[in-house]
């Protein structure tokens, strides 16, 4: 009995290694950074409103066994293209945000369909494929945004267009819809601004995900995620189910990016999406998710821990080493490091699960052999 308990404790430690590490980092760094609690809280709440929707979009592909959807960036690009159009048409405020979301749906769905099909051609290599596809589509995106927009795709407004006549300016200014969602019904509590509407939207998405798990499609996705062959034998259309999961994820990521950018208020045309995938995935993993299992709780915990680290690390790094750049690099290193660690643990676990089965068998035979 006692041994079993120890074993569980070790297991707990191993399964929650990343969140625990982050809690330690945050606890150490926070006093060093010298931020006031209300400043920190305000920052975290803002970043929660900004990021949670994006991160939630990662959950469904994990459920369908396709791992961390590095292809979510595709949705982000679709969202950006929609925002460019809306900006060009000068539709501002909440109507603009809603219109951008609607516009992004067909684009995201199309890109998601492509990504899903490619992933079906590379089963077992979904993550690296999604990762490469997002670079590939970045190229296409730049082609559209820098060369086709204004020359083939009509762009009217001169404030969006490059002076040369085609292409979009390096930064798209969203000041007229800046924080329009966040400011709606916002509550100021002890210096912390709480963007109620954004949180309501996030809440609705959480409800959707919980509900979705209970649908037939959700059940199919879970089945496909655990064992494709069994699911296929039971008559589930595996490929189609996988594609749908990627499409949903991409569309949600598109919405998420629009929410994210309306909070920021402007975006660099060519590169706004490039780091999104990495930060969202890192945050999710920091929350204790793994490549094959993630919950809404992981998302919230992850956002809080990851962004606390993100806010305090540069200052704390500067305070320790006297060089602010070190803190800057440190947080990048930690983000990459977390993903690396999670991926390594996932792969090792996958292999250990296999060899452990063998060891148990051998043990049983040994005992059996001795008895015989």
């Amino acid at each position, binding site marked *: 009995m006692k041994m079993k308990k120890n074993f569980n404790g070790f297991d707990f430690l191993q399964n929650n290694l990343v969140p625990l590490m982050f809690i330690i980092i945050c606890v150490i760094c926070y006093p060093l950074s010298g931020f006031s609690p209300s400043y920190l809280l305000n920052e975290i709440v803002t970043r929660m409103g900004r990021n949670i929707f994006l991160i939630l979009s990662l959950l469904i592909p994990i459920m369908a066994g396709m791992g961390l959807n590095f292809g979510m960036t595709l949705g982000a690009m679709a969202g950006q293209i929609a925002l460019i159009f809306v900006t060009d048409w000068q539709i501002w405020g909440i109507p603009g945000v809603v219109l951008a979301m609607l516009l992004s749906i067909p684009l995201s769905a199309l890109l998601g369909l492509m990504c899903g099909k490619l992933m079906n051609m590379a089963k077992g290599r979904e993550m690296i494929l999604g990762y490469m596809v997002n670079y590939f589509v970045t190229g296409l995106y730049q082609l559209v945004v820098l060369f086709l927009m204004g020359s083939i795709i009509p762009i009217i407004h001169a404030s969006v267009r490059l002076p040369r006549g085609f292409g979009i300016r390096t930064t798209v200014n969203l000041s007229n819809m800046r924080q329009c969602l966040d400011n709606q019904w916002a509550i100021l509590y002890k210096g912390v601004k709480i963007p109620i509407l954004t949180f309501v939207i996030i809440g609705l998405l959480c409800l959707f995900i919980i509900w979705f798990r209970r649908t*037939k499609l959700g059940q199919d996705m*879970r089945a496909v995620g655990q064992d494709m062959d069994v699911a296929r034998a039971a008559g589930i259309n595996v490929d189609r189910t996988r594609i749908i999961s990627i499409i949903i994820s991409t569309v949600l990521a598109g919405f998420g990016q629009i929410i994210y950018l309306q909070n920021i208020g402007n975006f660099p045309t060519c590169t706004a999406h490039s780091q999104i995938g990495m930060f969202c995935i890192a945050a999710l993993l920091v929350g204790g998710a793994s490549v094959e299992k993630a919950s809404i709780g992981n998302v919230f915990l992850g956002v809080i821990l990851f962004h606390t680290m993100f806010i305090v690390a540069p200052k704390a790094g500067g305070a320790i080493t006297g060089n602010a750049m070190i803190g800057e690099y440190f947080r990048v290193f930690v983000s990459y490091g977390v993903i690396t660690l999670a991926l390594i643990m996932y792969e090792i676990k996958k292999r250990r699960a296999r060899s452990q089965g063998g060891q148990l068998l051998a043990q049983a035979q040994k005992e059996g*052999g001795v008895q015989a």
Partner: protein
Amino acid sequence: MRGIKKDFFGNQVLTDINFTLGAGQVLGLCGENGAGKSTLMKILFGMDVIRETGGYSGDIFINGEKAAFNTPFDALAAGIGMVHQEFSLIPGFTATENILLNREPQKKNVISEVFGERLNTLDYKEMDRRAAAAIEKMGVEIDAKMVISSMPVGHKQFTEIARELSKDQLKLLILDEPTAVLTEKEAEALLDSIRGMAARGISVIFITHRLHEILAVCDQVVVMRDGHVVRDVPAGQTSVDDITRWMVGRDVQTSAAPTEAKEENASANVVMSIKHLWVDMPGETVRDVSLDVREGEILGIGGLAGQGKLGIPNGVMGLYEAGGTVEFDGREIPLNSPRKCLDASLAFVSEDRREVGLLLDESLEWNVAFPAMQIQNKFLKNLLGGLVKWRDEKAIHKVTQKYVDQLQIKCTSTAQKAKELSGGNQQKICLAKAFALEPKFLFVSEPTRGIDVGAKALVLNALRQFNRESGVTVVMISSELEELRQTCDRIAIISGGRVAGIRPATDSSEEFGALMVSQVI
């Protein structure tokens, strides 16, 4: 339901199979490996393999109506359920979820009205009810809320059966060796539940190697051999001995006597001595094998599939985790180290040609010469005073050509890729690879699996020649008893992961048959 009748008028694999099964009856199907049981069931279940390999001839009648299934789903719709040997369960789902996989009862909602049925929510209450009903029908207690991955093996098997039973239209259930993974008690419970099903009017086809189970539960016994039905008798009128005899017995004409079996020479040196070997090879577990191999002989190892005969060479050669002691030439050979075995002049031709035996994407030359090059530094030129070991393409070509001629391997050139050859020729390449090592001792595992008759004879001859002329001790593992009897001097039969007995090859087939089923687990 009046009665199910199935007739096959088949080809080489299955010839002229006829039998009928009434509603609510239990039919026991038995036969050696390769007798055609699984093929028959695949046809009945409409598996893709059958259609892909050219379909079948003959007719199946269900309730007096002719039925032709193109996919397993057609068969399912017609009321045929099958429990395969490999589990087909989702590990992270509960028993309930698995029982109703892809047949979950659903509730409509607003969103699904718009976006289609897949967004219906699941009706968990109804799911629990139906799963409970199916489990009840089976008559064995399992926890419907338990996740499959934490269940004991037996319960997984029962979950599979419950899944089939939960299908309302089920009329015929095929159980393919369901008791192989069960404990004695669980097997007993399963037999009870089979009786229960039959009482409810469900017909059952029960495939097993445990003959006493057949007698205990079946109404009717069908024995198959070489694609023929040799006996179709009511279970009450037969015995384990009868069935065994029918399973392995041959007609006098087809049974070739061992051609040149060596004189029994008990005084010959023991060259390899295996003591208390256990091997963890999935599906071919070896539990406790002690075996002496005499110098210069051909020892056959036979037995039914899954009893552990394949585990022996794989364990000794270090490909699967193993324990026990193996002595060769008076020296102990460390287990779990392929290199040490090869260094000791052992060689192994694996049963798994494509995965283990060959470099499919490389040339024949590489395939033949590679182990000899790596182990014995053959076919290498030492350059710079031995600092660089350069591949000697000429020597490699020469040796490959030699074996290509000797074994009559059909290929365009020795540079051809291994994957382009036929199965028989690939097997010969595997042999050539082992011959090139010039071993003192050779394990050959299933040398004739999946190759045609002509190639078979050639392969066996080559082995015998290698043994007689070079004096190499050969241990040959095969599922085909006749092949062993023709080629070997002595035959050891493995049953239940243990040696059931060793007999000279001249003994009768019936005797070997009895050994095969003696300790089946």
